[in-house]
């Protein structure tokens, strides 16, 4: 045995290790992108979550119908990791795909802050598609100068998804129309919840989370966190405060299963296990619920309208072409085709993403879903989208919404008083947004 370190050398080694360890910060690298030469084009598509194109086989069909075009598709499950990664690539100008998905909560940021990083679709073959949409969809993706930076994919009209078996066990109506008749307002929905809770099977709550409930309520509002002039009104808008208080009260009353949406593994499991009996569901959640509840869940769930038949919108997305793309023409043809009414209708039939073009909405009006007890989802979501207000979107919507949802989770799960949680949420927003 030789060379046992002296204390001094150990110190140096330890320090060196310390410094070296701290310096190992990760760096980011970009991917490659194909470009055109003699008639063949390699298009890259970067999306998040489930747009349904790969699932329905639309990429394969486009390749078959357009010889010479090959499509490379990659998807990130979580939008919250997808977007920051895309931001670094956009900023460096390398590694972006020819077509990138944009979530509706980001579109205001894109049109106000990133107009120079995206292609104005008015100058491309996609221009003719811009007029096909429901009235608010494309204006949201249009800059003050009139540049259109994205083509709409889906919108998020809302309904209430519920477990017929659990409601039946608690003696509540199980038929959609009968249930809708008992829910004229959100307060009625909460009152039904109290009734349910009194007779519910053990371990089952009326709804999944206070945060989800809150989101459903504000999704029916026109003005949420910004007013028409673009000023922040999250702390003064009575509708926001009312929605917060209603949701917080439901959480305090134990009507929620305290499962954070898309985050808590228990939330996913709850669709099958019955931890919660109802959830306000945008159309795109239809496919998600089916996936999580599986074949065994077929026939257990049904869908009805929001209280009083209110219209709302939660989510939806766009397809944009980064300015750095070398295949703008071909990419524009692709997104125009992917978002065309026929394809939108097909995606809706397969994964539930509701169409945003008026023609496609007419096509899917009669759609029913056997898994959901033959619920007339086409009619429910069409009505919701027709009745939905034209929401005012703002660049910090996502940050504010996340702060509100966190605060509501602290009410239902940690016993924080609603007024304190509200104050904390506002402080959080001020700290980040200024």
């Amino acid at each position: 045995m030789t060379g046992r370190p002296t204390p001094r050398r150990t110190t140096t080694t330890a320090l060196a290790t310390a410094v070296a360890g701290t310096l190992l910060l990760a760096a980011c690298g970009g991917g490659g992108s194909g470009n055109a030469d003699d008639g063949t084009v390699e298009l890259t598509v970067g999306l998040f979550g489930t747009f349904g194109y790969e699932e329905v086989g639309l990429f394969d069909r486009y390749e078959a119908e357009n010889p010479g075009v090959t499509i490379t598709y990659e998807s990130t499950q979580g939008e919250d990791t997808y977007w920051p990664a895309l931001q670094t690539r956009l900023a460096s100008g390398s590694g972006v795909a020819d077509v990138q998905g944009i979530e509706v909560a980001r579109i205001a940021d894109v049109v106000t802050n990133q107009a120079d990083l995206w292609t104005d679709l008015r100058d491309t073959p996609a221009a003719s598609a811009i007029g096909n949409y429901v009235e608010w969809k494309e204006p949201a993706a249009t800059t003050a100068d009139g540049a259109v930076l994205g083509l709409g994919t889906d919108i998020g009209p809302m309904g209430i998804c519920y477990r017929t078996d659990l409601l039946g066990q608690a003696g509540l109506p199980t038929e959609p129309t009968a249930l809708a008749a008992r829910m004229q307002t959100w307060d009625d929905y909460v009152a039904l919840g109290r009734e349910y809770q009194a007779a519910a099977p053990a371990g089952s709550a009326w709804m999944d989370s206070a945060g989800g409930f809150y989101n459903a309520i504000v999704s029916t509002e026109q003005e949420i966190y910004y007013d028409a002039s673009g000023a922040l009104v999250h702390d003064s808008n009575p509708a926001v405060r009312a929605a917060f208080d209603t949701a917080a009260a439901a959480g305090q009353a134990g009507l929620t299963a305290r499962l954070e949406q898309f985050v808590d593994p228990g939330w996913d499991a709850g669709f099958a296990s019955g931890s919660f009996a109802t959830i306000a569901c945008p159309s795109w959640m239809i496919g998600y619920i089916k996936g999580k509840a599986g074949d065994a869940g077929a026939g257990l769930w049904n869908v009805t309208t929001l209280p009083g038949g209110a219209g709302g919108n939660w989510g939806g997305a766009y397809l944009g072409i980064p300015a750095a793309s070398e295949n703008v023409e071909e990419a524009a043809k692709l997104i125009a085709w992917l978002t065309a009414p026929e394809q939108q209708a097909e995606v809706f039939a397969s994964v539930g993403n509701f169409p945003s073009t008026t023609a496609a909405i007419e096509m899917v009006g009669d759609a029913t879903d056997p898994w959901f007890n033959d619920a007339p989802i086409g009619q429910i979501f069409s009505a919701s989208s027709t009745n939905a207000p034209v929401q005012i979107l703002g660049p910090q919507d996502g940050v504010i919404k996340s702060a509100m949802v966190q605060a509501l989770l602290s009410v239902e799960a940690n016993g924080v008083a609603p007024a304190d949680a509200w104050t904390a949420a506002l402080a959080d927003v001020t700290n980040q947004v200024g």
Partner: protein
Amino acid sequence: MPTVQRPVPGERTAPPGAGTPWRARLFRVEERSAPYAYVAPFFLLFAAFGLFPLVHTAWISLHSYRLGSEMEWLGLENYAWLLSNPAFYNALWKTFTIGVLSTVPQLALALGLAHLLHYRMRGRTFFRVSMIMPYATSVAAAALVFAQLFGRDAGAVNWLLGIVGVDAVDWRNGDWTAQLAISVIVIWRWTGYNALIYLAGMQSISQDLYEAAALDGASRWQQFRHVTLPGLRPTILFTVVVSTIGASQLFGEPLIFGGGKPDGGALGQYQTLGLFMYQQGWTYGSLGRAATVAWVTFLLIIVLVLVNTRIAKRRAT
């Protein structure tokens, strides 16, 4: 080359006579500079991938830098923002508590395991190799599995507790429960690694010392305390320093335990400094503030390591 080495005129061996002082000086220069040339590749890499990011991060921390836009000079405003932000102190405190909750049991367990593995026994190699298995598992996989185990409604931990008659615990949403769950992931991953390091240290302690101690009538426990522990002091110092650094950079486990969101729970009950930094940079897009958190964390680690080694040195003398 397998050919016979012959002195080649004009190369290494200087011809006698002409130009000796000049050549001699050249040799001396080469002799002195060669070591630097040999270590240069490391330092070049270090400068590119270590020093530059560090300095650049410091530069960014003096700016307002939003993802996808230009940098704007702020001076020390980000630092003022950070030091007056309760969320930062929360993250600092949680990093400390989770650090203690995970490091102390981890090193104690590792020491005990190493002691047991030091004995001659059947299947010793198997046990030693299996020690390192958790370390070879990816953080993501481990954290995902543990997040399921610590689930409220259908988690295995609550199921076991239910058998003993304890009510279901909401691990994720509780304050200490969430920290405990995350500490368990860290302990599970790192105990074996530290045990192997301790084992290596133990094997380098001379057997004579144990024999002498045994002759003097020392029990197994006394041998452990008075021979093994002092002999392991440098090794223990090393593991403490490395674990401290690891704890202050804890990131993957709480991120994935939190479902991929860096909030660290509704009240930030398990938001470590790493998560806080990530949240600033990637959730809010404030790279300047994230860089500030990174630099303050770095300075804290330096201080921690200095304190650590100072204490250890005082105890050694």
